[in-house]
């Protein structure tokens, strides 16, 4: 982790994230009140996202704690990916996308004028649904982030190996660092993408259904990895798979169709005793 000022603070998140953003009161001062185990690293306030005239997210307010795994679940099209992409401003790349409201990263609104999305993305890494290694060697794939971020001055080789190690891939590819990343299996490719994302030592890692294209064995490897990563990084993960969310996350946010955040709480709470009937229906498979 890069240095970051401020002593440890305890922040309540258990009461935020209702789907009534118009009240907005709890979140306004939220970062400072209530005791909790972990500090808030990301906070969205009344976040609306539009694609052209269609609204994909409606007043999302939530606080994501540091060094924990936060899962975003919900039926297809409810805006999970959209929310994820608005955290590191990947939505900027979509012409028709428009974001309103605020999103704070360590207290800085990432939608402020003076924030360069490129600089932001260097702090917040991302892993995508379909593994997308570059058509380069395994080594160059991992080193790519270091190079573009100008972090290739020190021992690149060392950094690459560490990242592959952390991504639980090093053993499998140790002798073939020069062969193409495209020659790996799907699960290995996804771990390569994770290694690439963590090589530059970001603070947050966003993952958009990172295991949905993989077979069960590869999936469980990725799940193990996500849990380990949370020891050092903040992980926000989108998943379609309820069991997966239950297994690996500390917090769970449930989005429902229409782009609302219906409930956000500790994962245990959500899966055992959700407050909203709609959430219960969704989790027990009644729809979605």
């Amino acid at each position, binding site marked *: 982790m890069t240095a*970051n*000022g*401020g002593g440890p603070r305890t922040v309540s998140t258990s009461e935020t994230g209702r789907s009534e953003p118009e009240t907005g009161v709890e979140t306004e001062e939220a*970062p*400072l009140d209530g005791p909790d185990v972990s500090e808030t690293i990301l*906070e969205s306030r009344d976040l609306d996202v539009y694609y052209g005239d269609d609204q994909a997210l409606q007043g999302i307010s939530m606080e994501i704690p540091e060094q924990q795994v936060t899962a975003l679940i919900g039926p297809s099209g409810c805006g999970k990916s959209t929310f994820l992409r608005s955290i590191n401003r990947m939505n900027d790349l979509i012409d028709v996308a428009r974001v309103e409201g605020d999103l*704070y*990263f*360590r*207290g*800085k*609104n990432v939608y402020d004028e*003076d*924030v*360069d999305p*490129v*600089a*932001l993305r*260097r*702090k917040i890494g991302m892993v995508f649904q379909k593994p997308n290694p570059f058509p380069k060697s395994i080594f160059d794939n991992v080193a790519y982030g270091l190079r573009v*971020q*100008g972090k290739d001055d020190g021992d690149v080789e060392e950094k690459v190996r560490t990242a592959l190690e952390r991504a639980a891939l090093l053993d499998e590819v140790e002798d073939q660092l020069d062969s193409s990343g495209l020659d790996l299996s799907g699960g290995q490719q996804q771990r390569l993408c994770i290694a690439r994302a963590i090589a530059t030592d970001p603070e947050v890692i966003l993952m958009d259904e990172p295991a949905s294209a993989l077979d069960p064995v590869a999936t469980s490897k990725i799940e193990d990895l996500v849990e380990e990563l949370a020891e050092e990084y903040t992980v926000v993960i989108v998943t379609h798979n309820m069991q997966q969310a239950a297994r690996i996350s500390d917090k769970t946010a449930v989005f429902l169709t229409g782009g609302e955040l219906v409930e956000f709480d500790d994962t245990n709470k959500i899966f055992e005793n959700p407050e909203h009937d709609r959430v219960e229906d969704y989790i027990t498979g009644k729809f979605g």
Partner: protein
Amino acid sequence: MSTETSEFEFDESAVKRKRQLGRVFLGLCFAATMVGIVALVALLVDVIVEAWGWLTWEFLTYPPSQIVEHYDPSNYGDLPTGPGGMYPMIVGSIYLITLTAIFTLFLGVGAAIYLEEYAGDTFLTRFIEANISNLAGVPSIVYGLLGLAVFVRALQTGQSLIAGSLTLTLLILPIVIVQSQESLRAVPDSMRQASYGAGATKWQTIRNVVLPEAVPGIMTGIILSLSRAIGETAPILMVGAATTLFAPPDLTDPTGPFGAMPMQIFEWAKLPEDDFQHVAAAGIVVLLTVLLLMNAVAIYIRNRYDPRG
């Protein structure tokens, strides 16, 4: 939260430098794009400016002359003969293209039908297809040499309309075949199945179902290829297009001498007298106009009949 001292600092200086580099690069890319556009505009403007005042109705309807003054509209009144123009060459080009169209229509579509509908995935098929793609890259002057040796000399057609159009046919055949193949491939297989299921023979299926569907695409391809053929100079030059034609070639006697617009333009452009530059430019404007019309027709057909819009 905004009052928080731990506000996150973005390390922006490195990014800024890169952004500047990016802007320079974008400027370069944009400038490069403009190079092509500017060249196109310069070319068209240059040709039109040079042709201005020389492109008259008479230019389109009279035969060429040796004397440059004959082309000058200000002299039209006091010439011993009629004004100079490129009428025989315009007609010659049209005849040339008509014959070429007929030949390519049969050969090109026939070959495409064979490759798409009859041929299996055999070595011979792959060889023919590789051969076609190679032929598409053979320089046009080599086709001219072929036409000279095979049609003009060996088959004794002489420096004739038929030799010219056969040469152009071979030149554009590869493109026509490939484009016709694409059109045939776009006809859904379910149409063929339906036809066979109704007890049609292969030929009935092709003639009644496949071809009618593919015709707009094939026509578009042929017209676009013909618009390339009409501007080709090197091949017809090698087979000996004439530049002193008084009367247009005779379509009923395709073994007679022929002229064509690009050849005449080449002849004029070679002449050093300044005024011939204007005559050549006027010829170019005529050629480009014909070309533009052909392209417009092709685009019209494509838009009109293409089910994909």
